[in-house]
């Protein structure tokens, strides 16, 4: 957990939050990214989960501190706690569920209004495995699912449709929205792994160099913290919190 990368590359922490309607696959994306694993019928996240994962860029190592939030509405009031000071956000929708994109737009608007000004937002349409091949690559195919019998990706859990393609949101629609708002845009499948790593590396690359000032030991520096006295530790943690609220600086505990 602690920053042990022996590589000479500098290492930076990036706080990333996932937002989106319930059951669009936020936790599954994280699980794919962090453990390269997938679970069918995963139970809903309760509250929020905190995970970390590193990726290596040519010039540096990025350590993602990921907040995977629950999508149910009753948790919505807690969201600001998670996106506050976040440098990146994944706003996830379900390609087979139109309402989930509407919800995603709301999250994007809220982030633009209330999150840190420089936040990098990626719009991610998940469950690509439920969509017919062609519509994934071809922008216009989604609206005219002509190749009816194509059962390439069988909808195991989505509402089955006549033509084996459960896609309800066209790539073009989402992509043009993302471009308008200046968002990164991806269509992914946590189930097959398609594009998942790409999302995170694109985010890592998009984080402005200026906001990457070395790593801060707060989350992973357990050992370090552990070595100081318990009472001090609480104070340190509080100081860390306060510092972070002010600026994203290198209050490195190492």
């Amino acid at each position: 957990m602690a920053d042990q990368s022996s590589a000479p590359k500098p290492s930076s922490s990036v706080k990333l939050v996932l937002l989106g309607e319930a059951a669009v696959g936020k936790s599954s994306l994280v699980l794919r990214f962090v453990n390269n694993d997938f679970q069918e019928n995963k139970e809903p996240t309760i509250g929020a989960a905190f995970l970390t994962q590193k990726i290596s860029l040519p010039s540096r190592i990025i350590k993602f501190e990921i907040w995977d939030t629950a999508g149910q509405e009753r948790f919505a009031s807690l969201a600001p706690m998670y996106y506050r000071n976040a440098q990146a956000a994944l706003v996830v929708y379900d390609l087979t569920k139109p309402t989930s994109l509407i919800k995603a737009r709301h999250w994007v608007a809220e982030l633009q209004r209330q999150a840190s000004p420089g936040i990098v937002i990626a719009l991610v349409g998940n469950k690509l495995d439920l969509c017919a091949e062609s519509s994934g690559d071809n922008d216009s195919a989604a609206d005219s699912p002509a190749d009816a019998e194509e059962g390439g990706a069988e909808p195991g859990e989505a509402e089955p449709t006549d033509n084996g393609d459960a896609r309800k949101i066209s790539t073009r629609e989402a992509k043009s929205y993302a471009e308008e708002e200046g968002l990164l845009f991806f269509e992914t499948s946590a189930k097959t792994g398609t594009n998942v790593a790409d999302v995170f590396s694109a985010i890592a690359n998009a984080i402005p160099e200026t906001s990457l000032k070395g790593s801060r030991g707060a989350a992973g520096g357990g050992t370090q913290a552990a070595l100081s006295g318990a009472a001090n530790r609480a104070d340190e943690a509080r100081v860390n919190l306060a510092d972070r609220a002010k600026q994203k600086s290198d209050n490195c505990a190492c």
Partner: protein
Amino acid sequence: MDGNNAKASPSTPPWSEEAERPPLPPRPSELNLMQLTTSTSNASRPPTRAGLVSGATTAVSMADVNSYNRPDGSKELRVTPSRVSSSPSIRAATSNKTSEIGEDNSSIRSYAPFGRYIQDTESIFDGEVQEDQGLSSSFSDGMFEDGPDSFDDEEDVDFDKEFDDPDDKIVGEEMAHNVWKSKRKHFIILSAAGKPIYTRHGSDAVISAYVGIIQTIISSYLDWDDQLRSFRAGGVLFAVLSQSNLFLVGITSLPESEAQLRVQLEALYMQILSTLTLPTLTHLFSVRPSTDLRRPLEGTEVLLSSLADTFTRGSPSTLLSALECLKIRKSHRNVINTTMIRARVDDLLYGLIVAGGRLVSVIRPKKHSLHPGDLQLIFNMIFEAEGIKAGGGDSWVPICLPGFNNTGYLYMYVSFLDMRGDQAREMAENERIAKEDSVAIILLSANKEGFEDLHSMKNYLVHEFRRNQSLRIIHAAVQAGRPAPTDIIAGTVLRHFLYKSKGNVQFFMPSYSPNFETLKQRRRLMSLYHHLHASVHAKHAAVKVHHSVGTSATALAWVTPMFELYCVASPSTSRNALAQSVNKVLQWVQREEERIFIIGGAVF
């Protein structure tokens, strides 16, 4: 249950979300402890679960809890009219002690078994309430009156399919109905207006007609100013719990008493409160009586179902309203406690180490004990349901603990530790952990923003536990499992037993193996325990020792003010042999009590 594609009901337009979110939970800024303590003593709140009212935070000692001359006593009586009638000797004993330490409000009384009253050790749980009020209530029907052999009658239980839920679309409507009817146990929750909220088995299509009938029956009694509590039809027991515009209905053909079923319904109600809090629940229904509660409860069906299944399988913890601890040496537990206390951050309310559903250590503020019902909810969420365990990483969960305070949320930090391997490292998130193997650090705070502090406290704990070998000790104890009855007493005739220490609100049991390995065998054992428990807790029962002989087992229940003991032996066991073994169990428990129970726990 619904998997990734769970349908968010299309009836609620998601774009309204921005404008009208569900009512916000009370802000944690309002949640300081002072207010918690005062708010719970508010006697004018709407009637709620009796146990909750009486067992709430203000109950700084069990003496308070058990005392019946408290101001809201009359209300308790009204809610569960029969609770006063619990066995007189127990009552006398407890009230005795009430006066004994009545003046000491700030510390919590405990008494060790066997009559040693130790005033300076403290009980970590307030708990007797639930047991008293739940189980002394009416036990009037014929379920267990047909002789001691009644527990043999479920040879035919097809328990393997009890927890399967086939899809209607696949099996067809008629089949779905038949499957539904074949279940031994049902839990259905509906609103007073008749809207289905939750069912363990069956789709909406299957249950809608039943929900209509249930609602009609219950409300016709309400029209007559009466409250339907339970009835029996064709060997099936129906129990109804009416709480804050909710009807919780339990339907069972397993051998259970009404009181026992009612305790289970109360636990489900507590789970709902734990999601929404009582004020929110009340508010939702006062604004719109026809509110569809499924929406605000979205995502918690799995928690209700895992609770329901625990009850259907039979849970010693629920039956006894007590908790089980991991058996480790007292000195080892002290090291863990001390480490926890030293690691404590200011925002911490409760700190728990739990291994495989068994408590290893608890630290708590002097003024607050823990309600077993709350811990049951936490354990269910963390160890039975998959949401937290399978997600990996650390969780930060808003949770209302109704026994502690049903008006607001606490925030729970949960981190699983991987105990495998010599060096305990943090769990590799993709590894599914078996319940028995998983060790969790659970830290509760009233501060919504407390994650970082608690996270660093966890890191410190892991570091220290590794340094002082505590992790290895916990790991070894988990691996060793519960001792078999014959490990405890060489050559004993006992096949299994439950020992509840009333003062500690904890119980101990040996391993299920070698005699109760399968689900069906365990259910049969649990049925027998339910039977024994009902016999000694029956209304007006003066029974202290209950010996029953059946064709499949000989059993004995013994209840004193200090403990409850339930033993099961083979059918041919003589009474003398049984009595001898029972005495040996008591001696063993007395000798080991500081290992098998957490006495007092660490207080700050």
